[in-house]
């Protein structure tokens, strides 16, 4: 298709098919994107960091990092008009990022992302619908877990090391008072130990546990009902016009 200028409706429809959002939802998200980017075509990390309500969130950095994660996308920046070459397949309603594994080698993060990537990341938080089969639910669950895993695996090497885990715990504790760094380390160590002992029970006392791989991650979180809890409700109706005076939030 090259760089032909497709009309916005076509693009939106295309995106709707690929991500599973409805047209209304995409329109609303597009409006929000425009708000954040200041009517540009791309947003940078600073745009997201300047959201005031996000200031109190302890794991803000990781979440923003997840939006700009290079390994998630084929290319960092997509031309506004082109229908990009996305080597992803889709099935009714959601995207299988199974092929993301092929891009494991590309570490680092983009500086700017376009609306496509914004939408892709958002699509991880769609709720399951009643009509999903068990396999679809399972695949959606893996999707979401994969997203969380990438969020914590900040250097994108495929494992969450002790250092990265400590960082997570530290930030979770950072907002509450005077818990020191030792406490964070103690908790992170205990958590790692737990993962190691449940997943590699035959490990001897001298073996070194490199880090939590995705399979181990799935294992330790299988108690949490990811597919039913990790989602937010995207708006179908246009409420941006109803919120006066809050356009900069």
């Amino acid at each position, binding site marked *: 298709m090259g760089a032909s200028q497709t009309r916005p409706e076509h693009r939106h429809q295309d995106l709707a098919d690929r991500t599973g959002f409805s047209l209304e939802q995409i329109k609303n*998200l597009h409006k*929000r994107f425009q*708000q*954040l980017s200041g009517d540009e075509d791309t947003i940078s990390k600073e745009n*997201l960091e300047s*959201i005031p*309500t*996000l200031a*109190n*969130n*302890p*794991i*803000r950095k990781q*979440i923003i990092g997840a*939006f700009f994660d290079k390994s998630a996308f084929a290319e960092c920046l997509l031309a506004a008009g082109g229908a990009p070459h996305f080597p992803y397949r889709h099935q009714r309603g959601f995207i299988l990022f199974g092929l993301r594994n092929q891009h494991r080698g590309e570490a680092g993060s983009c500086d700017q992302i376009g609306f496509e990537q914004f939408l892709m990341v*958002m699509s991880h*938080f769609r*709720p*399951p*619908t*009643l009509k999903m089969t068990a396999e679809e639910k399972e695949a959606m669950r893996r999707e979401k877990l994969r997203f*969380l895993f990438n*969020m*914590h695996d900040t250097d994108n090497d495929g494992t969450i090391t002790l250092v990265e885990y400590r960082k*997570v*715990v530290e930030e*979770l*504790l950072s*907002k*509450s*008072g*005077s*818990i020191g760094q030792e*406490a964070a380390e*103690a*908790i992170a160590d*205990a*958590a790692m130990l*737990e*993962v190691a002992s449940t997943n590699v029970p035959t490990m001897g006392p001298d073996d070194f546990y490199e880090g939590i791989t995705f399979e181990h991650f799935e294992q*330790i*979180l299988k*108690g*949490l009902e990811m597919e*039913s*809890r*990790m*989602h*937010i*409700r*995207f*708006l179908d109706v246009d409420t*941006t016009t109803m919120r006066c005076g809050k356009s900069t*939030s």
Partner: protein
Amino acid sequence: MCHWDTAQLRPERGRHGASDVAVARSAVEEPPGPGEGEEDGNPHHHGGGYRVVQWEWSYVQTPYIIATWLLLASVAKILFHFSQRFTTVVPESCMLILLGLVLGGVVLIANEKQLYQLEPALFFLFLLPTIVGDAGYFMPARLFFDNLGAILTYAVVGTLWNAFCTGFCLYAAKLLGRVQADLMDFLLFGALISAVDPVAVLAVFEEVHVNDTLFIIVFGESLVNDAVTVVLYKVYISFVEVGVDNVQTADYFKGVASFLIVSIGGTLVGLVFALILGFITRFTKKVRIIEPLFVFLLVYLAYLTAELFSLSAILSMTFCGIGANKYVEANISQKSRTTVKYTMKTLASIAETIIFIFLGISAVDKSKWAWDTGLVSCTLVFIFVFRAAGVIGQTWVLNRFRLVPLDKIDQVVMSYGGLRGAVAFALVVLLDGKQVKAKDYFVATTIVVVFFTVMFQGLTIKPLVDWLKVPRSTNRKPTINEEIHERAFDHTLAAVEDIAGLQGYHHWRDKWEQFDKNYLSKLLLRKSVYRKSELWEAYQKINIRDAISVIDQVMMTSQICDDALRWPTDVDMY
């Protein structure tokens, strides 16, 4: 609830010699005691002799009888659990009711009249608060508020639907039977028979272990519908007293206003007491030994205060428990926590046992009820049909708004789990027989309905749940990893909502947590606790739990080895 005669609860304990009026729990004002009557403490004065042993029955009568009943109920529970096969099939509540029937029969034969019955006053002032208090204090608050929309819908809309439909249809069907009553009477009956009962739900569901969401919806409904039941009951009683023709339209509006006042007022009373309780426990460091007492007293006072103002007492107690739990558990010592937990659970268990036994006993007293086949069968059919229809309708509406839809299996369990219990029975016994002429028929019907739901539905719900493959609860304690990721999760969702510019559920929950951290926790938590974070507390709890389980395992292993080897424990096993 409304006016009852508390005079029957006041035993006058005279000393020896006086003719006592120590009252047993009999509904009719009759001389007390099984058999002995009010004999004096000193039957004969042999002109000044000293009696070595005396029969002081009238002095100890009331507490003695109470203690004996409790002992009987508890021993019955032990005996039930001797047969493993029996207990997996038959729920405890069934067996207790059957035991009550047997005991009632025995007392009836022995005495020609029924001496014991489930007194509404006893039920509402002592037995029900125990159970509701335990349930409210240990309610998983997060789960409750996540599903609050569904709970409120089923409790308010569902109960109203059930009440009106049942009442109207029974009135329409009255041609089938001998029952002479008018519309108001039937509406009153419909109101009291249509509320899902918390005691029955707890008793049956705790043996079935369905998944948490389903349980919280049904159980939450049974608690919150108290407000609706209270209002409908009072409104209809006043209509019946005044007479149908004198009811004005203003009274209907007063009814609606009354509902809002009762429910919101009850909740506010509960929250006020929760604040007081949290605040008091902040300062109890030097008086650790009476910490549990504060918890019990204030939660009970929340109930009684709401009763005092005719507000919804169950709502008050529930919200007091939910609100205070977080702060109290953080403030009080570990030993106090254990004491509170086990005392509440023990008392609740006893109360439940007594309720079911007395339900059985009360059923045997034929003088209190009158049978009408038409009314009974119609009521049974109607409550089933309308419950199912109500659940289906409401779920269809709710699924448009819920993030996690409720599927057909959930709906079946919810319809089937709408059990009626002792609350309905107590309310029907409370009716004034002179105002409501058909009271005896209503009592019989209520007994049948309660028995049917508790026994038949209680027996069959486990096979049903197995057959439908309802997801069960795992009831596992969370690991440290799950704790970490739960919190990371919450923050992630709140952040994504902020980025997307939505002010959704997570955004508001996040805001509430901030408010809580900045204001409420500062006020209600002890200073030393306030500075720690929840994750740290969770980590400590897990450590303690793991350490205890390791020690238990070591002890168990050594015990097994001891038994196997028959050596004393100083054998080196490592």
